[in-house]
């Protein structure tokens, strides 16, 4: 059975279950809604300036477009009964792209896509037991720049709140023995394509979450066939009415991260190697931060990230050297070009959430300015490269149904070969979101 037909079967199942439980629901709660939905349409334009970096020489490796325009229709359908709940989120997108830089200059392309971004069916066989299956997004943790404790979903959806992360096929069991403790067992039900090294075995996880009157603590243990032990944790503490402190981290035994190493056999003189693949060393990645809300309602957040698997100064130098060599040979004859391409792919996805080890993030958020405007200003700074990225998110609620938005980012540091300016120097996305 294909995934598409499975989706249809699940949707039909949801309807059947809903029809059977409608009477029961309405009897218990005079105004319960069994079905509900949101229907949103987005139209936006996006412009980005590809940098002349060694990661993407002459824009020939990543072929980043300069402009794009997109229309999206996003219906969210929900079912809620006392024993079964579910969601189905089909998406229709139409995209047009224009290239102005490098090898692709003058090219255009269009794409129309229909897909189900995520769906979920959750049954409640017992008051304290929930079993769900679907193409789910299971994001957790309080941090902004990364969610290290979540190996399933790296994206925190906070860099650009208008883009959606696509779900993964997951089976989940949630047990609530009491009000304070939640135990979740989850497993991917499909092997994941991880690009270069083929398909990874499904990730399985056990998560225990303890909720106190003003704190939340969670621990996550991961199991993946032929992979290293990993333990994650996150927590938050509402220290006062105005302050929330939090952390999110993971520790792994050894690491999958690729490191640049001298390699006499390679024409490039070095190659990327999983240096600590079988190591017994512990590699923690942790974020810690806090938010403070002023009496006016404005909020300031600060977050620190320590990424042990990231590169120190010597490794970073070797990394940029190797990347530079690969870039220089990308346009050479067949043999070396292929190796360069592979090296640039590895340089792009080293396996570490961030390239280096120390980062700081500051954020200012002002919501409901004159009851219609939300502003988020954020700056992420790499302490070792002394370069960062500034971004701004503006949302203006023009009417009850229409919202205009603009999301911009620009790199600060004025060098082409820093982590933040490896791909794009600046970008701006502007559009309108309609709630129908």
């Amino acid at each position: 059975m294909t995934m598409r037909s499975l989706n249809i079967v699940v949707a039909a199942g949801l309807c059947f279950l809903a029809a059977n439980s409608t009477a029961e629901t309405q009897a218990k709660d005079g105004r319960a809604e069994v079905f509900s939905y949101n229907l949103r349409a987005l139209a936006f334009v996006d412009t980005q300036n590809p940098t002349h970096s060694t990661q993407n020489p002459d824009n020939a490796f990543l072929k980043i477009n300069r402009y794009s325009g997109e229309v999206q229709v996003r219906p969210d359908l929900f079912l809620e009964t006392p024993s079964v709940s579910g969601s189905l989120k089909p998406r229709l997108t139409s995209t047009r792209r224009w290239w102005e830089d490098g090898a692709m200059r003058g090219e255009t392309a269009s794409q129309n896509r229909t897909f189900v971004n995520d769906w979920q069916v959750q049954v409640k066989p017992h008051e304290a037991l929930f079993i769900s299956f679907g193409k789910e997004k299971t994001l957790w943790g309080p941090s902004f720049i990364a969610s290290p404790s979540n190996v399933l979903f790296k994206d925190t959806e906070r860099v650009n709140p208008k883009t959606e992360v696509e779900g993964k096929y997951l089976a989940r069991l949630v047990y609530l023995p009491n009000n304070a403790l939640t135990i979740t067992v989850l497993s991917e039900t499909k092997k994941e394509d991880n690009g270069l090294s083929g398909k990874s075995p499904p990730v399985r996880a056990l998560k225990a979450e303890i909720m106190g009157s003003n704190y939340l603590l969670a621990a996550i243990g991961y199991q993946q066939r032929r992979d290293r032990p990993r333990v994650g944790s996150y927590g938050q503490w509402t220290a006062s009415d105005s302050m929330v402190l939090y952390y999110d981290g993971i520790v792994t035994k050894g690491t999958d991260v690729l490191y640049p190493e001298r390699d006499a056999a390679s024409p490039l003189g070095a190659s990327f190697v999983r240096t600590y693949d079988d190591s017994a060393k512990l590699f923690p990645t942790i974020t810690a931060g806090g938010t403070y809300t002023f009496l006016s309602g404005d909020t300031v957040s600060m977050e620190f990230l320590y990424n042990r698997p990231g590169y120190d100064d010597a490794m970073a130098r070797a990394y940029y050297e190797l990347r530079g060599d690969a870039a220089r040979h990308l346009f050479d004859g067949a043999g070396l070009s292929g190796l360069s391409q592979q090296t640039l792919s590895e340089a792009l996805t080293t396996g570490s959430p961030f390239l280096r080890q120390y980062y700081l993030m500051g954020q200012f958020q002002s919501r409901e300015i004159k009851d219609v405007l939300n502003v988020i200003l954020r700056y992420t700074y790499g302490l070792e490269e002394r370069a960062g990225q500034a971004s701004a998110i503006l949302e203006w609620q023009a009417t009850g149904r229409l919202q205009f938005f603009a999301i911009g980012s620009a790199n600060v540091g004025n060098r082409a070969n820093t982590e933040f300016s490896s791909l794009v120097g600046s970008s701006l996305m502007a559009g309108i979101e309609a709630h129908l």
Partner: protein
Amino acid sequence: MKRMLMIMSCLLFLLHGVCGFAHGEEPSVRDILKNADRARGNLDGIVWDITIATSEDGSKEARGMTVKVKKNNTLAKFTSPPAMNDRMVLMIDRNMWFIRAGLKKPVSISPRQKLLGDAANGDIASTNYVEDYHATLLGVEAVQAEPCFVLDLKAASKNVTYDRIKYWVSRERLVGVKAEFYTLSGKLFKTAEFKYDNRIKLDDKNDVPFVSELVIRDAIERDKITTMTYSNIIVRTIPDSTFNLNTLVR
């Protein structure tokens, strides 16, 4: 005679149970707050609709939400305007999250964070002043000709929405009718007035008043008014799992 006295004592006790506090008998500060909290949602399970409207400099905005409350836990789903009906605020005691259907990762927020106008997240939750504040009875004052107990509430911990509240509770109805909210430095920053035109049935016998309107005025910008209107109140059992991030389908 002894038997008569016992019967009369029992009758008085029963009368107290049915009618509340017997005429002439003043309730304790704790009882005053407990009753006032109950009229503002501190129950085992209640669902209500809240409309928050603001007016400032001639401009008006409104938000609607359906709120499920169980003791200190609250789940508020925005219902209007349409652009916001994919948003939720979940409060588990003092832990709070903002959730958008499109974004799966809940955002941790503080109780002080603004909801609309002068209404903070903490304002849509039920009140639990009896546990959250140390109360002192300052005296009795009339508010719009209604005699009220005047209570001085000081935060019992740092985790409450307001550091100090001066709270006027109707002597007869035992519901809060007026409040002044102060900062840690003792500065007045907003005032509130309450109406209780709703009634809820707690069991077959008791029919008690329930909050119907809360008007918040900014202490500095006096024309900045936020009105919270409560309607469609249903008392019912709500499972604890309603307030769990892990089981919330969105």
